[in-house]
């Protein structure tokens, strides 16, 4: 009997008993199921028997895990009493530990492996390396395109839907927060949609109400619009605006060429940032915030450029230089400002990106020749060597010069590569002219040239980002030595960028007109921003109605309407935060003569910023994960314009059983979610936490 008292024998017995209880449950369930009918009754019996078996398994297994914990505590030379405590603690925590191993850890590792294979359910998996990720991220083939579309959709929800949702929720919370009678009832009413919105039933009701022809909402809207000329104007303006915006967005999502408009955004961002940096002094908090924005945009942009360099392997090595030059500008700025933490983060981020590119170039794709690899390696060296150098030892002037040298070389190489030929032929003049003044684009009747060759020549001209990087780097260096010169650099830079923004916008309009004219002359329809052109061709007529769920121009607004309707949970979180704001603050502000707007922006908003931040993170993640709503509301025409990443995951994995690619999607999704959370926490300095 002595041997039975041995700890390890106990563990063994318990483990065997636990497994035995599961096997017994399985055997009994199979026996009962085969002798019972109908199917549903049999399956209910099976579920009950399995539940009993699982409970036995968990109890026995938990005690077993508890003993294992105790044994480990024994090896760690804990006292006898401590060992006992560990036994009880682990035994109680064991249901979660066992579940974690079976349902989270094991599957997560398995899916990491599946994502590297072409596994389809019922077939043997073949190892195919990063192929799944490449297809998904580069938008290759039908599946890659659909995944890209789902990412565009999520971006739309984050950009348009989440702010609208936050505003609705905050407005509701502020209404309910007033000290009036009956507010508890209204709070209840505002919250009801949340518990319903998760369910299929109410979504079907929405589908019914949103029917474009004779649906309740459209009938009501039309009746309201016809009652008064101003409401009629608003109604038509709403239709016009939504269709125009969504038409443009769906063109973008489809990859239609925007022509010179590609400059407008970087130029505008550059102009605003430079303008802000020219005002005030370095200690000014407003400017600090401006740099924060610059950092976020920069980080995201660099990340995207690196990813492009990673997935379009032999196509464009310029991306490495672009991403790298922006990263160097970031390092310089943070180094000069003496922000050590940010500096280290930027350096690490840059090196990881470069390492990723090099790994893929050297090991990932064996079909590449050394000639194709060389530009990547040289590019990585131009960026990587100064960055590495800047990481050793304290920040010094030598490091500034090294980094600045790398930055200048990178941008110069890019510039020569893209404009060297034109420079030789002295044709750079039209390029400069068109960038600044929007006059160089000669209307051409050649549709192919307009749609293919011309955008190609522009795409490489993303060197504008390089110019932004160069200016930021220059500012960083000027900061400590010549403060006055720095201000002038900033002002001149802002003016130049503003000119580029205006010029490229005007040229973009001309570009669209040229395509229009050319396609009309050729008598063939173009598919260039078709939806946008149709939507904005004329002011909506008398009988136009919002098409809601039956058109891809309206499907996303419909979804956003429903999320706004069910933003009661956010309201409750805002409400809890609002109740926590001390009335004394408002009283003091009133005494100082602050008006309502000032009190809202200077007291309420900063004081509830933790709740705002929490809601923001949750809402953006939820936008990526929407499933039920899309499943119920989609139609054949709108499914592509509605689908979220999770919905794509569902169709790819469970309709087409492509487990390998589905796993790839889920890991990309997990990566994006973690990235969003990290970025948001890293840049949540505007959040005011009361200590």
């Amino acid at each position, binding site marked *: 009997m002595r041997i039975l008292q041995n700890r390890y024998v106990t563990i063994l017995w318990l483990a065997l008993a636990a497994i035995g209880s599961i096997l017994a449950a399985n055997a009994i369930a199979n026996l009962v199921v085969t002798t019972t009918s109908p199917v549903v009754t049999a399956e209910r019996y099976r579920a009950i028997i399995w539940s009993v078996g699982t*409970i036995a398994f968990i109890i026995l297994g938990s005690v077993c895990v508890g003993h294992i914990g105790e044994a480990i505590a024994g090896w760690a030379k804990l006292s006898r009493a401590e060992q006992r405590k560990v036994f009880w603690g682990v035994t*109680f925590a064991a249901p979660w530990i066992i579940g974690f191993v079976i349902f989270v850890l094991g599957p997560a590792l398995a899916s990491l492996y599946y994502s590297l294979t072409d596994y389809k359910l019922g077939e043997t998996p073949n190892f195919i390396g990063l192929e799944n990720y490449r297809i998904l991220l580069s938008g290759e083939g039908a599946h890659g395109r659909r995944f890209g579309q789902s990412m565009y959709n999520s971006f739309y929800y984050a950009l348009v839907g989440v702010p609208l949702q936050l505003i609705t929720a905050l407005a509701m919370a502020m209404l309910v927060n007033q000290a009036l009678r009956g507010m508890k009832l209204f709070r209840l009413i*505002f919250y009801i949609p949340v*518990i319903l919105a998760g369910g*299929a039933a109410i979504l079907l009701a929405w589908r019914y109400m949103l029917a474009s022809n004779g649906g309740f909402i459209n009938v009501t809207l039309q009746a309201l619009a016809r009652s008064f000329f101003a409401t009629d104007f608003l109604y038509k303006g709403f239709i016009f605006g939504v269709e125009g915006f969504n038409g443009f967005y769906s063109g973008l999502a489809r990859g239609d060429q925007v022509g010179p408009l590609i400059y407008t955004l970087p130029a505008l961002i550059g102009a605003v940032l430079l303008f802000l940096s020219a005002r005030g002094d370095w200690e000014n908090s407003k400017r600090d915030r401006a740099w924060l924005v610059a950092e976020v945009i920069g980080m995201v942009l660099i990340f995207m450029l690196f990813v492009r360099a990673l997935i379009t392997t032999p196509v464009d090595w310029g991306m490495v230089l672009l991403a790298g030059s922006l990263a160097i500008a970031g390092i310089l700025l943070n180094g000069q400002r003496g922000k050590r933490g940010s500096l280290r983060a930027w350096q690490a981020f840059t090196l990881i990106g470069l390492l990723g590119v090099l790994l893929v170039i050297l090991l990932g794709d064996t079909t590449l020749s050394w000639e194709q690899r060389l530009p990547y390696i040289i590019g990585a060296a131009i960026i990587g060597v100064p960055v590495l150098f800047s990481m050793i030892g304290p920040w010094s002037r030598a490091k500034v010069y090294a980094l600045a040298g790398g930055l200048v070389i990178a941008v110069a190489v890019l510039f020569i590569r893209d404009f060297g030929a034109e420079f030789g032929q002295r044709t750079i003049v039209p390029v400069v002219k068109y960038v600044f003044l929007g006059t160089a684009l000669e209307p051409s009747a050649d549709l192919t040239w307009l749609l293919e060759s011309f955008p190609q020549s522009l795409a490489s001209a993303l060197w504008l980002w390089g110019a932004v990087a160069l200016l930021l780097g220059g500012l960083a260096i000027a900061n400590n030595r010549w403060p006055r010169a720095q201000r002038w650099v900033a002002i001149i830079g802002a003016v130049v960028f503003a000119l580029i923004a205006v010029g490229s916008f005007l040229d973009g309009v001309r570009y669209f007109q040229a395509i229009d004219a050319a396609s009309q002359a050729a008598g063939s329809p173009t598919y260039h921003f078709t939806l946008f052109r149709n939507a904005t061709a004329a002011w909506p007529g008398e009988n136009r109605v919002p098409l809601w769920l039956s058109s891809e121009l309206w499907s996303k607004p419909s979804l956003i309407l429903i999320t706004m309707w069910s933003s009661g949970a956010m309201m409750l979180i805002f409400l809890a935060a609002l109740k926590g704001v001390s009335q004394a603050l408002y009283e003091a502000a009133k005494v100082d003569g602050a008006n309502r707007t000032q009190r809202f922006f200077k007291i309420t908003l900063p004081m509830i910023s933790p709740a705002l931040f929490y809601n923001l993170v949750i809402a953006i993640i939820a936008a990526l994960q929407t499933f039920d709503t899309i499943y119920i509301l989609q139609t054949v025409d709108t499914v592509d314009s509605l689908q979220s990443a999770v919905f794509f*995951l569902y169709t790819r994995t469970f309709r087409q059983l492509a487990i390998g690619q*589905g796993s790839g999607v889920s890991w990309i999704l997990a990566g994006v979610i973690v990235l969003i959370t990290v970025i948001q926490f890293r840049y949540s300095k505007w959040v005011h936490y009361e200590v």
Partner: protein
Amino acid sequence: MTTVTRNTGLPLNEGVVPRKRPGLPRRFLNAIGGWTAIFTYLIMILASLFFLFPLAWMGGTSLKTIQEANGSQLNFLPAIPQWENYAKLFADETFYRSYINSIFVTALVLIGTVTSIAVVAYSFSRLQWKGRNAVFYLMLGTLMLPAQATLVPQYVLFHNLDWIRTFNPITIPGYFAGGAALIFLVRQFMLTIPKELDEAAIVDGANPLQIWWYIIMPLSRPAIATITVFLFVGQWNNLLNPLLYLQKPELYTMPVYIAQQRAITETPIPWQDIMASSVAFVVPVLIVFFLTQRYFIEGISFTGSKEG
């Protein structure tokens, strides 16, 4: 925000000798807080209409005839309420089978999940053991991992176990304390129970299991109630998992049954039947919500303030 201090309950003319008792309209106005309040109420009522309308529309349609449901849709209520829509519904075998399936699955999930969460939260809050914090932070870390990361391999796992087209994939994982956020919520609550209670029980010779059952569980009732209602609503509404695993009309739960109806192609669409089944589906959730709304509101405010 702006009217917080208006309604202090003090008469505005305090200290002045009242001349005459104001008339009824004036007294009514004062009682509800003046013109600003009336304006606020107006906005609130309009907003309430927006929030409640889909529900009301659902109820109204469920009593219409098929002609009314597909006709001019500004009629909110039917001319004659068609109660037999509901009679017809409960005579339909596929409907009540799905309904009972839903109740069955929800009950099993609730029992398993709530009990196991209470056990695990107890270990993370009341028991002192070396390594507890490491395990606890590991658990919080799983909050970062989106459920979708394990959705696909779990499907493969259940496929290999031959569990597809059974209730097991939905009911069994619950027994393993699923839901880190809920464990966290209960743990935070259990931390607020005075330590002396456990100590007294230990002196009396109770073991941790007895302490859990006789002391902690009765005192944790509000937290347990909160997670129960959360889980109930979540499970009752859950569409994705039943859709993935049940794959057989006999096993459908209500969300899947209702979701199937969106694809009905017959014309005219029998909206009144669809809405009647929707009403039947929504009613339990609404009842539970009205009975337990305190827990909902506290629970959500709590998670928001603790995690944010």
